[in-house]
Structure formats: structure tokens, C-alpha cells
């Protein structure tokens, strides 16, 4: 039935280091997530559709000149993973802006840092970060991401069911989560054949399928 493959989860990775961007992208793709990488907090907010004054721009093309990967806020982002130390807007600043935004606050945010500073870690967690990873990030770290994204997915799915008043019976929320979990466990053992093409940018206006 192909339910809830991880390739349906889209992660936005933010890091000013080109090497770390390449690494995190590879880690995420290996874990079968769709990935978009940006090199700054402000670009991250732009991608999420958030502007300085916290308004979401509806249907305004904001395409960066050389980067055809830019998309509007129609693209669903299931998790943001960001470096802490970045020039300009730090990962902490980005976290705050996301959590302060009514439209974005439910997106789980994970912070990465090369430095093990307890006060920094607790500050981020207090501000609403789901996880704090020490760099270099490992594949095993990424297994902690799925539960956070699943939580948000089933919330959205439930909301859609209520809104659309579907005619056919829909699975209970817990049942769906269990099914997703066991499917995900199966996926660990066997690649579902997610082709690399899926990680290329999608055409404008097409939302990700829940």
C-alpha cells in the first residue's frame, strides 16, 4: 500500500558550511527524506514563506535568480535542522522566529552544533528545539527525527479528515501511527526504491501528498 514512506517527509537543512550541507544532505537522503539545503537562516525563513514582518506571502513568486530550487510556502516542510553557529541569524535566532510564527510554530526544529555547551543546549531546548545534535552528525542521530515528523503528520492528517468529511472510514489516529511505525521498521530492512529523482525540486504549485 506504500503508506507513509519517509520520502514523503521533507526536511529543510540550514548550515553555512558547504561541507556540512553536503554531509547533512547525504545523511538525510540516505534516510530517505526529501531535502532542501540553504546556507542561512534568512534564506530558510524565505523558503518557509516567512518574511521579516511575519506575514506569509500568498502566491508571490519569490524565486532567487540562480536557484531554481526556490519554492513558495506551498511546499510542506516537516522538519527544520539547523546549525547553531552561523553568521547573521544564528540557529537559535531561526528557532525563535519559527516558534514565534503562528504558521510555522508546529514545525519541529533540531539544532546542530560542533560545541558541547550545556547552557546553549538547554537554551535551545527551552525555546522549543526537539533535539540537539553534536557535530559531526551521524546516521544514528537521524533516527531520532522520524517520531517528531510523524507527530506533525498525523496531526495534519486528522485535521484534513475533519475538514474534508471523507465518505470512507478513516483509520484511527493511533492505528495510523502504529501502521506508519511498522512500515518504517520494514523500510529499514529494505529500500523502497526511492529514486534519487524524487529529491529534485517539484514543479510549482504541487503540494506534497500526505
Amino acid at each position: 500500500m506504500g503508506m507513509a514512506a519517509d520520502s514523503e517527509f521533507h526536511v529543510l537543512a540550514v548550515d553555512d558550511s558547504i561541507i556540512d550541507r553536503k554531509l547533512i544532505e547525504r545523511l538525510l537522503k540516505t534516510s530517505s527524506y526529501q531535502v532542501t539545503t540553504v546556507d542561512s537562516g534568512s534564506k530558510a525563513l524565505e523558503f518557509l514563506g516567512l518574511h521579516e514582518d511575519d506575514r506569509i506571502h500568498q502566491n508571490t513568486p519569490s524565486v532567487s535568480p540562480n536557484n531554481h530550487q526556490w519554492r513558495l510556502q506551498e511546499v510542506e516542510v516537516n522538519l527544520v535542522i539547523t546549525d547553531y553557529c552561523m553568521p547573521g541569524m544564528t540557529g537559535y535566532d531561526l528557532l525563535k522566529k519559527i516558534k514565534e510564527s503562528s504558521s510555522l510554530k508546529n514545525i519541529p526544529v533540531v539544532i546542530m552544533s560542533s560545541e558541547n555547551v550545556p547552557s546553549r543546549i538547554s537554551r535551545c531546548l527551552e525555546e522549543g528545539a526537539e533535539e540537539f545534535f553534536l557535530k559531526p552528525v551521524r546516521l544514528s542521530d537521524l533516527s531520532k527525527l522520524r517520531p517528531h515528523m510523524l507527530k506533525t503528520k498525523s496531526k495534519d492528517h486528522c485535521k484534513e479528515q475533519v475538514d474534508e468529511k471523507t465518505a470512507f472510514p478513516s483509520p484511527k489516529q493511533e492505528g495510523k501511527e502504529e501502521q506508519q511505525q511498522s512500515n518504517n521498521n520494514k523500510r529499514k530492512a529494505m529500500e523502497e526504491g526511492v529514486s534519487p529523482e524524487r529529491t529534485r525540486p517539484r514543479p510549482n504549485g504541487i503540494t506534497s501528498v500526505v
Partner: protein
Amino acid sequence: MLGLAADRLRADTNRLLAFLFHQGILDEQFLQLQQLEDETSPNFVSEVVNIYFHESEKLLRNLRSLLMDKEFSDYNKMGIHLNQFMGSSSSIGAKRIRNVCVAFRAASEQNNRAGCLRALELLEHEYCFLKNKLHELFQIQQQRALAAAVRYPMQN
């Protein structure tokens, strides 16, 4: 014979890697990079390492021109370059280089210019050494790939 050549090349790879790990030049993170290589991304390690080389040489040039400047006083700026270098080195498993960066940063925080110069020379040396070794490693791996692709006619 093909089999022996492949065996020898594999032994060469293992010997080189063992040496690099044993000397503390590389650490486990490098293995993590190798594990991320597969059919969909068969050149991942060399791609990342080449980016690392490119970035590192830029950073080394910046550090050197900062320190060579007679009027140099911007230890802050040097610290920023060093943090970048530390981060990227740590990300590819270049343990020894990262450790030299740590010492370099300490000298920089004490505004110790002579110490910084010494650290920079050591850094340049370590970087050169690592670059040569990794090039060697990639060459062996290229030969292995070629050996695997060549077919010999069956002898009776």
C-alpha cells in the same frame, strides 16, 4: 592474475587506512563518510574531500595573509577562519588537523602571534600530508574500480 591484483589493491587500501587511523590522522568520522557511499552516490567521499581541500586551501591562504600582515591585530577574524577549519576538518574526520586548529585557536585567544605562526606552519604541514595520503587512497580505489571492470579471457 586479476584476483591477485584486486587482493593486493585491497590490502594496500587497508594498510593505508590502518596507518592513517593508527597515527590519529583520521578518525571514525571518515568511516562514517565511507558508509554513506553507495550505488546512488558512488563518489561521495572523494566529492566531500575535494570540497574540503578547496575550502581548506582558501582558509590557509586567509590565515597566512592575516598573519603576514605587519599591522595584523584582528585575532577575532582569525578565530572565525579557525572555527570554520575546525568544523570542516571534524566533519570529514581529519582529527590531527582539527587538533592543531584547537592549539592554534588557543594561541590566537592569547593574542600570541609567534604561537599562531608556529601553529600555522604545523597546520600547513599536516594539511599537505593529509592531502597526499588521501590522493594516494583515491588512486588505489580508482585502480580497484578499473581492475574490477577489466575482464580476462578464461584460460583452460
